[in-house]
């Protein structure tokens, strides 16, 4: 994959480039400020970008803004946001355009390199990958979500794992269920959420959006 890495701390940027190259991916550009990030994303149109939220010169959410601006120009441009902390507010902003190809993780997730690369590939393929911390907060405040109340406990945990970005097979392994059981649950929860699209991948994105966006 062709990847753009936007991160202002040298050690992290260098480590990430080395990690990605060790896994056989090509880093086409690196960026250290919000403006550079936007420029690199628009010029190189990478298969996926890894972007830090907080960047110079303001040391606020420059990276996030650059990613959102780039996705307005190039809808569906896959972006994996890596941050020191995860905020539901930011996750919702990223997912608001509904076109998928979004990931939002804590920086610690690179500690488990296999999972990190796996998430990166899913995002590049147009899926979503959310940090379990975001999902956990959503589950704790999920009581206010009326559409989700119709789901059973099991369906809700399947949706949660789906939001993290796992495949049916991986979800089945986590919940100790067969693949066919999982696909039964996914079909019924798509029905309850009123999602009827045939394209399986897009349906998953829509389900996760329903999960994240319903106030």
């Amino acid at each position, binding site marked *: 994959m062709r990847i753009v890495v936007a991160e202002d701390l040298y050690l992290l940027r260098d480590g990430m480039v080395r990690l990605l190259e060790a896994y056989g991916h090509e880093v086409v550009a690196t960026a250290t400020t919000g403006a550079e990030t936007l420029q690199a994303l628009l010029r190189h149109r990478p298969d996926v970008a890894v972007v830090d939220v907080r960047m110079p010169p303001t040391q606020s959410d420059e990276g996030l803004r650059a990613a959102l601006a780039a996705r307005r120009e190039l809808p569906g441009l896959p972006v994996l946001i890596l941050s020191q*902390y995860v905020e539901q507010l930011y996750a919702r902003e990223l997912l608001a355009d509904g076109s998928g190809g979004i990931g939002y993780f804590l920086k610690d997730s690179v500690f488990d390199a296999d999972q990190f690369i796996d998430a990166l590939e899913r995002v590049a393929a147009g899926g979503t990958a959310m940090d379990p911390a975001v999902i956990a907060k959503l589950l704790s405040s999920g009581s206010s979500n009326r559409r989700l109340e119709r789901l059973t406990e099991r369906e809700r945990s399947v949706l949660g794992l789906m939001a993290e970005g796992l495949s049916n097979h991986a979800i089945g392994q986590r919940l100790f269920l067969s693949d066919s059981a999982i696909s039964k649950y996914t079909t019924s929860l798509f029905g309850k959420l009123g999602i009827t699209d045939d394209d399986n991948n897009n349906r998953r994105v829509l389900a996760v959006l329903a999960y994240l966006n319903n106030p």
Partner: protein
Amino acid sequence: MRQLGSWLARVGVGFVRACVVTVVSLLVPAVWAAAVALGIWWGAGNPWSWVAPFVLVCVGTLALSRPVCRMVRFLVARWTTSVIPAGYRQAPPVTQLSTGYWWNGFSYERTSRDALLDQRWRVRWIDPANWRDLRFTAVAPLTAGVVASLPPVGAAAAVLGLSQPAPFARLVGAVGLVVAFTTAPYAWRFVEPVAVRFLRPTPAMALADRVDELTAQRADATVAQAAEIRRIERDLHDGAQARLVSLGLSLATAEKLMETNPAQAKALMREARAGATASLTELRDLVRGINPPVLNDRGLVDAVRALALDSPLETDVSADLRLRLDPPIESALYFGVAELLTNAVKHAQATRARISIARDTTTTTTIVVDVEDDGRGGAGERADGGLAGLRRRLTAFDGTVEITSPAGGPTRVRMMVPCESL
């Protein structure tokens, strides 16, 4: 008919008020008059006859000045919309020292009663408000007193004049009656501008009050800050720092075991990775407690919206999106909202909350944050509780907190902070 009735009522009320103002403002002159009468009665030939009237005048004036001013302030506040702050000096608290003696801010006394008595006299004696009160007792009879005495004097003239058979006396009586009726609704009103002009605290007194207030605020802020720094130090020391040491230990052991027992070395490395994740989580929580990242990135409104998303309550946020305040004020308000939401969940068992952030519609230089929940109410302020902490936090910016929380709910808290930069 109704108009006549209301006019008569106004005349009656005005007459009574005029009489009250006359009596109050003439108390001190009455003492002086009594002293003069005493001097004359004592005998003009006696060379020491001036002593008793002189003492009477001094003691009477000093003793009456403050009660007269208090009464005028009370009457003005009751009859009109003007509220005049008293501005008297407040006595500092009396404390018992480890030696058993009592310290009242001036001297050591054997008992608390002595200390209080001594303090009361000293505070009373050195209060700069005494001069203002004395000046008012001199000014009042010549201004408000003279005007307010018109109705009672007119009435007295009417009673005396109309009871005499002579036509001239009757004429005077009739004029007095007219004067009493026409001036009664208005004559007492002159006391308000006079009191506002001469009884308000002088700039020096207001400044002294402000200095006291700021000293107390500074003490509070310093204590709160020191406590916060201690908390941060403790959290770092017990949490992240200890974890990093153990991480280093695990890595050193793993390095040693690499050749002899690779399997165990691998397990130790995995443990070390988990330890690194845990210490990152701890550091993240700590940072959030000091200065939440969203607040830094986006300001108060988005930070509160993020807070609402994370809260288990169903929370509505309505806000003026263009607001951007000074960072310390934003921080104080943010932590205030966080505290109130936590209380609503923990103590009030609420299920929904409403937060509104806006600028005050009348002054526009005050930021008003309302937090309302549907919980069971009954929130009280304890000295070491969260609400008192919230008040202290906002006091540092001259902010105020209004809490209405009847038992059974709902709880409404309004935080207001003046903010010139708005």
